């Protein structure tokens, strides 16, 4: 039962990634694309977690934790870059 449910959920997550990739492709502004790529990363975290349940391996949760933190880092870096042109400029925003 767990095998069938995890397979179905993995297919659903791939559909979500496809929809988000389409938004990242057609997105009229750059923050649209940033939001879509952030959504893809979050979906990938979900896929890794589901795959950890399916493979019965606790190791994959570490990868999900690291990718969550990297997603936040990339989002903040892109926000700062779009606002000020640099990432590390010594200001608070």
């Amino acid at each position, binding site marked *: *039962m*767990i095998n069938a*449910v*995890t397979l*179905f*959920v993995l297919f*659903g*997550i791939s*559909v*979500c*990634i496809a*929809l*988000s990739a*389409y*938004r990242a492709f057609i997105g*009229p*502004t750059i*923050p*649209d694309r*940033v*939001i*879509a790529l*952030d*959504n893809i990363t*979050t*979906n990938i*975290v*979900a896929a890794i*977690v*589901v795959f*950890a*349940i399916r493979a*019965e*391996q*606790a190791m994959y*949760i*570490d990868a*999900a*934790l690291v990718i*969550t*933190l990297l*997603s*936040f880092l990339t*989002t*903040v870096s*892109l*926000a*700062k870059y*779009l*606002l000020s042109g640099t990432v590390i400029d010594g200001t608070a*925003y």
Partner: protein
Amino acid sequence: MELLISGFLLAGLFFLLTGALGLLRLKDVYSRMHATTKSTTLGVAGMVLAALFSMRALGLSSGLKETLTLFFLFLTAPVGAHMIARTAYRSGIPLWKGGVIDEMKAWQDGTLDDPNQPASPADPVSPVDIDGPQEAPAQSPDSDQMPSEEEVYL
């Protein structure tokens, strides 16, 4: 236990699909962010809870890393979305023309008297028209009417 794990997985899939559909269908940056941030975070939370129960039932993990993943996800997703929203507003990306209120515009113009009081009906806050790079070229003079289907942003 398998029913519990499957229920959490399917609930998480529902919220992830809702977030992706909102990202695809909504009208401007801010509403798309409104769709994705909350529902996608909740969907991943359901899946991480399913992993926590699964690993605890199988005796593979103590559940600390799942809880830590959930904690960092709930901590970082609103902060990242807030920074992207502020970047989008400050770089002049216009709101959807069918939107009702833009409180930030009134605050920047200084026409907002008290933020705790509702705006007086004599001067309602008009929908914003920021001159952005994606702005439609010609503003019709009667822009405070309800926009037609062609004037709606995107």
